[in-house]
Every structure is written in C-alpha cells, then in structure tokens.
C-alpha cells in the first residue's frame, strides 16, 4: 500500500496511491497509515483522489486513522471519488470527517 507524505499548508498531507481500499488492502493500508502518522503533530489531510472504491473494511481502516493520530490532531479527507463519497454519505461518516472537494478548498485549515 503506497502512501506518500508531504506538507500542505498546516497539514500533513498523505496521498493514497491505491485504487481500492477494500478487504484485500485494508490491513496493509492501516499499517502504512500508522507508519506515516506516528510521531507527527500536524493535522492529517488524507488525499483519496486516486481511490476509486472502498468497502466497509476500507471505511473502518480510515476511521482507525482518527484513533491513530490521537485526540489532539484532526483527520480530514480530500478529493473523494463518487463511489467513495457514497459510502461516507450512506454511513453518515461525512458528519465525522470534514470532506474537502479538492486540495485548494478554502475550508482547509478552518477549525469552525
């Protein structure tokens, strides 16, 4: 599971370079996410623009990111593709994660 990290404003931007976060990939994704986020202090912005599909395993793995970073760091999501956004809406996870349509969204960095 390929994740790349960079700085994006005040965020630690993590770009997921996989087409699917599903039952086949969820464990590897969680492990890669744990490595990428450990020791960090910035809020995390997860770029899912390359992810065409997630199932409930993938959703659970993304939820686990919130626990990984701890209560003092936010996890926000960007660039959700239609089928991925569908899963977040249906499960009401869009009320848990702030979703950004793209990486230039003016809502980025706002805590309100």
């Amino acid at each position, binding site marked *: 599971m390929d994740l790349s990290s960079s700085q994006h404003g005040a965020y630690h931007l993590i770009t997921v370079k996989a087409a699917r976060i599903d*039952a*086949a*990939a969820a464990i590897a994704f969680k492990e890669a996410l744990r490595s990428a986020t450990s020791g960090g202090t910035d809020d995390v912005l997860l770029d899912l623009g390359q992810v065409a599909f997630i199932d409930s395993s993938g959703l*659970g793995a993304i939820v686990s990111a919130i626990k990984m970073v701890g209560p003092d760091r936010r996890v926000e999501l960007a660039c959700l593709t*239609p089928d991925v956004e569908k899963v977040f809406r249906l*499960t009401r996870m869009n009320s848990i994660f702030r979703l950004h349509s793209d990486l230039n969204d003016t809502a980025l960095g706002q805590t309100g």
Partner: protein
Amino acid sequence: MTIAPAQSAKVFELVASPAGIRVGLSEIRIHLRETGLSDCRCGTTEIVLAEALNNIAEHAYEDCGVGDIAVAITLDNVGILIEFTDSGAPLPGLSPPAGNPPVLDAPSGDLPEGGYGWFLIRKLTTKLAYTRQNGQNFLRLRMNLRGAQHAPGRTFGAWSR
C-alpha cells in the same frame, strides 16, 4: 439511461478470498456496464456485492481463502436481482443481521471500525432473503436502480422484508 429488458441470469463463479472477490467484482462490473447501467448505479451495486461477498468469505468460509461463491445477476426494467450461493457455514440463527446503523455519537476514540457491512446491504437493497438447503447458503438481494420505491409485478417468493 435505459436498462436492458429482463434477461436470464448471468452467473459468475468467484473464489472466496479477498483477491478472488476483487477479480469477481471487476468482471461483474464490466458486465453491468455492458448492459448499459450507469457508472453511478454500477458503483452502488458494487458496494452491495462487495459487502455480501466479504461476509460470505469471512463468516461462511471463515476467512480460509478457499471455497466458491456463485453470483447470479439478473437485470430487469426496474433493478437487479443478485443471488449468492455458497457451501460454507450457515448464517448464525439462519438469519441475516439487522444491520443497524453503527452509533456515531461517541468520542472520536470510540468510533466503531466495523458493523457497516450489513448496514450498507440493508440500506441499498429493497428485498433480502436467506435460506439454507442441502448444505448450501442462498442469499437473494434486490436493488431498485430506477429510483422507484417498489418494483411492480415481479415477486421472488418468500422475502424476509
């Protein structure tokens, strides 16, 4: 976008492993696109398929990675009938889970990471029936893909809802 008229079922044979399920989902999606189903509706169908298949692999076949799942797809003017057949262990209580929505008003550290699968299946299907016979599980799901609340005409025998 017109959906193809009622046709006989197309059957896909899948290996009950995460990799086998990926292959099967890809083949089924190609088939659905070929029938003229929109990308959006293909995506919604794939979510239901993935959740049902994952459940069969994880619970009926206890994650051992071997075992076959047959998936029969039948499209009609209103939606899609999906019939899963496997030879794994029965559903506990011979009854599909209610799929209640996971509770989200918890501190962030306590958010559930599971329990979304059956919720998604229940949310996206209009009919669901499970039976077991001769050591095989039969799960039948119906999805409306035209936005209609109820599919007129066709009935599918005994449904659980």
